[in-house]
């Protein structure tokens, strides 16, 4: 186990392991997503309250889940990178940030589209999940802005890792305060938490979509991290060999 982790911390091994993992992640993710989408959109029964409009959860829930999972992953990588000074972890953060921001944006967009027929409005300040997701997007954007304005790579790595950790310990507080604030508004009346139990014909496609999207995210993350590692190691011998077209 430890030897495996040590090997993974070496850019060269990481690169070759990532290369062999990407097709597995991508293919299994795509299969699950296609199966989940077909079953969810055509075979799952319509919701007794929301009709066919509920079907957007097959895109919305996975995006919202990944937006949070990606930030947790970045926070974990930042922790590892700052404590044990593992360089790969910095590359993982760089790879994950734009993906996380994009899935956060998707979650907001699909949530907004869903809100239009359900709540009668594109945006509802009364829903704490919507507003704290927006603040999550701001945290991603802040990270990318800081990263973009620091030209020195080593400095940008460490400073942005600190920012991510500060953001991570504040996320629960932000979420809690947004929830407290919205509880003073009138709550959303159409969509209540803890509604009717979900039908298994609806649930299984959703689970397939969540796992499939996660695998898809994993493959994209590996591709981006690979490129970042190669860029960082471009002066090392193995990277030069790789770039000139030889196999490792």
């Amino acid at each position, binding site marked *: 186990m430890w030897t495996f982790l040590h090997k993974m911390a070496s850019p060269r091994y990481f690169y070759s392991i990532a290369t062999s993992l990407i097709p597995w992640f991508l293919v299994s993710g795509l299969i699950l997503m296609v199966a989940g989408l077909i079953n969810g959109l055509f075979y799952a029964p319509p919701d007794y309250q929301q009709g066919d409009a509920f079907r957007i959860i097959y895109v919305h829930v996975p995006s919202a889940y990944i937006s949070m999972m990606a930030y947790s992953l970045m926070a974990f990588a930042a922790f590892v990178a700052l404590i044990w000074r593992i360089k790969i972890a910095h590359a993982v953060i760089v790879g994950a940030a734009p993906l996380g921001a994009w899935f956060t944006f998707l979650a907001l967009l699909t949530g907004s589209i869903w809100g239009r027929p359900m709540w009668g409005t594109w945006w509802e300040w009364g829903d704490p999940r919507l507003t704290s997701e927006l*603040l999550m997007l*701001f*945290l991603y*954007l*802040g990270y990318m*802005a*800081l990263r973009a*304005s*620091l030209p*020195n790579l*080593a*400095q940008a790595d*460490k*400073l942005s890792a*600190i*920012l991510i*950790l*500060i*953001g991570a*310990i*504040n996320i629960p*507080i*932000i979420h*809690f*305060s*947004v929830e*407290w*604030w919205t509880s*003073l508004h009138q709550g959303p009346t159409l969509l209540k938490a803890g509604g009717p139990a979900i039908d298994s014909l609806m649930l299984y496609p959703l689970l397939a979509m969540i796992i499939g999207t996660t695998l898809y995210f994993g493959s994209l993350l590996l591709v981006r991290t690979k490129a970042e590692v190669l860029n960082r190691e471009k002066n090392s011998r193995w990277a030069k060999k790789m770039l000139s077209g030889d196999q490792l």
Partner: protein
Amino acid sequence: MNKSNNTSLLSGFNAMFRRDCLQYIKNPSQLLNPLIFFVMITAAFPFAVDSSKLQLTQIGPGIIWIMAILSYLLTLQHLYLDDADDGCLDYIILSPQPLPLLVLAKICAHWISSGLPLIIISPIIGIIYQMQVDTILVMIATLFFGTFALSLIGSIGASLTISINNSNILVSLLVLPIMIPILIFGARTIGLYQAGTTTISGLYFMSAYCMFALSFSPFASAAALKIGSE
């Protein structure tokens, strides 16, 4: 801890605190301009919106808190950037005193020079927004905890960006999401008090957030300053 240098922790803290306060006093425009900005913009709002008494009492707490945060963001560049420019910061980092303690001294001096004047001037703004005297007292209480928390959080943003030129907008982007809880609780506590509901829980939260920020901000800022000045 540093007995060999014949200096105690407290004397280092005091020296840093006194020096920073003196520096702020010697440059009054640094201190006054954000304050004037705060007063002018809050006074400009009633021109733009309906200036009836009901409307003003409803939007007052929110506007005062938004403007307090905005004028506060303008002062953050003086927290570390001036010292980084003239080289003092390197000596502060090299000093045998623990850096988080010196950072805390700088944060306290910043609060004395930016937060305290804002609190002192806030009753005038409260009167412009038709607040009752007891509401103004609640507002002062929220501003007291809130501005200190803003200084602590702002210090992280300022220290992360010391190696960047013209970082003012960037600092705002970094720290605003983290300042949202202060904004929510600051403005809503005043609003709730005006509506006649209980407010003490809001003040409890703000003081708790203040203590929480106090527990990590000096260390995070010190780490960022060390990395940023390499």
